[in-house]
């Protein structure tokens, strides 16, 4: 889905990612504490080590290298650097948890402790989505970008849905005939694809509306200050 690359949106998005990074880390600590009750196999904790451990270490090293680890001043460049670094760490950690959740499901399908990595990203994802839509950051940019983006979206969602359907039907194919598996995959694809398509479309519309409202408020504020002057 090709959208316009906008520095304002990138900055605002990084701020949101930076804020939710420590939420993700906190949830990781809670999840590990709960997981310890069920299973202490080292392999089950690899997602948390590779995700949160490596990202936090990277953050500490980067801050120390730039000499800003314990700095508390309000220099704009330093604040920007810190936000970008936290944003990068969050994105890396999030992707690791997403991928490892799938891997854990494949290798430990019956182990309840393995499911922790699969669900840990849901709360931060929800919080990030809410703020991104509220701040109008899901924007197409122009009508041309919107047309291109919608076409890509309409092609991408069915493909992703089919992939999801096949992946989920994979686990039951041993006990089914080929046609049953195909039907199973199609039903799962529809169950995921239809809500996702309409959900995402609605999110884009809401975000666009919020962005326009933000702009209208800014323009009205500007006009009000002009009137006050006279």
């Amino acid at each position: 889905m090709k959208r316009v690359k906008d520095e304002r949106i990138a900055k605002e998005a990084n701020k949101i990612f930076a804020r939710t990074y420590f939420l993700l880390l906190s949830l990781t600590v809670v999840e590990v504490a709960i997981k310890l009750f069920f299973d202490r196999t080292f392999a089950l904790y690899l997602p948390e080590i590779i995700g949160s451990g490596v990202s936090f270490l990277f953050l500490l090293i980067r801050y120390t290298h730039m000499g800003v680890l314990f700095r508390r001043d309000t220099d704009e460049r330093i604040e920007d650097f810190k936000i970008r670094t936290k944003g990068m760490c969050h994105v890396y950690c999030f992707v690791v948890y997403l991928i490892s959740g799938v891997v854990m499901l494949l290798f430990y399908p019956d182990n309840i402790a393995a499911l922790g990595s699969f669900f840990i990203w849901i709360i931060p994802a929800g919080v990030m989505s809410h703020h991104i839509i509220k701040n109008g950051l899901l924007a197409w940019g122009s009508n041309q970008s919107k047309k291109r983006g919608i076409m890509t979206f309409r092609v991408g969602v069915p493909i992703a849905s089919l992939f999801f359907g096949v992946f989920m039907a994979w686990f039951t194919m041993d006990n089914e005939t080929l046609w049953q598996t195909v039907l199973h995959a199609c039903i799962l694809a529809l169950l995921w694809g239809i809500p996702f398509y309409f959900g995402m479309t609605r999110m884009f519309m809401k975000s666009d509306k919020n962005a326009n409202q933000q702009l209208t408020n800014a323009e009205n504020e500007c006009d009000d200050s002009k009137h006050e002057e006279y």
Partner: protein
Amino acid sequence: MLKMNAMTANMKNIKLKIARVALELSQEQLAEKVGVTRQTIGLIEAGKYNPSLNLCIAICMALEKTLDELFWE
């Protein structure tokens, strides 16, 4: 001080807006040329967002103006 700030904000709006209108470009068209969203151009014109130097240069090139003409007070 408050009046001067308001005047300063309005001067920024007018310069950029005039330059854009002179080339008969809408905010959307300028945004497409520069590579940002329409809302970003609108917020810059309203004085609510400070663009980076790269974005200022991109806007100047799109509007065939210099940095002084659009962004210097």
